[in-house]
């Protein structure tokens, strides 16, 4: 389920400048803990963004994305009051969605 994302969407005309922070370890599966035990791979694989329920952006990613990932992208045709929902899903099947109101 994970910790809440931090999403910001700033309108510039009808484009929403979206910035999202995610709390996730993005473990490569190759690091060892202090006792020498391998820390299992644990990383986000898929990100989806929806504006008022309509998909606008998605990504498939690897464990090469930095820990506590940060993404920015620009959604077209947005206006104040629109609902922007972002979802991530990781390799363990864990998922999280958070939603904000654009310009709110």
């Amino acid at each position, binding site marked *: 389920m994970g910790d809440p994302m931090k999403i910001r969407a700033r309108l510039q005309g009808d484009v929403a400048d979206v910035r999202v922070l995610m709390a996730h370890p993005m473990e*490569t599966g190759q690091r060892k803990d202090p006792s020498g035990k391998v820390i299992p791979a644990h990383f986000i694989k898929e990100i989806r963004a929806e504006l008022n329920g309509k998909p606008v952006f998605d990504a498939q990613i690897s464990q090469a994305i930095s820990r506590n990932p*940060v993404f920015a992208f620009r959604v077209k045709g947005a206006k104040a009051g629109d609902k922007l929902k972002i979802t991530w899903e990781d390799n*363990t099947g864990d998922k999280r969605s958070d939603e904000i109101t654009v310009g709110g």
Partner: protein
Amino acid sequence: MDQTRRGVLKGAGTAGALVAAFATGALRPADVLAAWNKGAFDAKTTADALKAMNIASAADSADIVIRAPDIAENGAVVPIDITSKIPGTQSISLFVEKNPFPYVGTFNVAAGAEPFVHVRVKISESSNVRAVVAAGGKYFQTVKEVKVTIGGCGG
């Protein structure tokens, strides 16, 4: 940094881990989205990753701009902006060529986003960073070199 660097360097085997996860039932195939191209993510070279993505060739283009540090302060967190000015850009894929698994991901903008993405990636050693853009059924690319330094103390 050292731990992360080592983690990336020794990244080989994640593919095996995934296979193992499937075998043990920890991961059901349905959990993995069809769009997540396992063959490409498991490839050890950019060429093999492109092959797995059915990208036979990509034309060099000055209309793709990679903004990344010439010298990154910390290879664990390298900020990269990719902007495409190619009309009809559908997706932007990113590769860090010297990483054990070069394919970092694909960002699909066709549904309603501008052809731009900002990401932060792990870079295991000084490397070329390659962006491949899909537009109108064709592929375009550009490359930028990023050096990674050895750090000082905790800042």
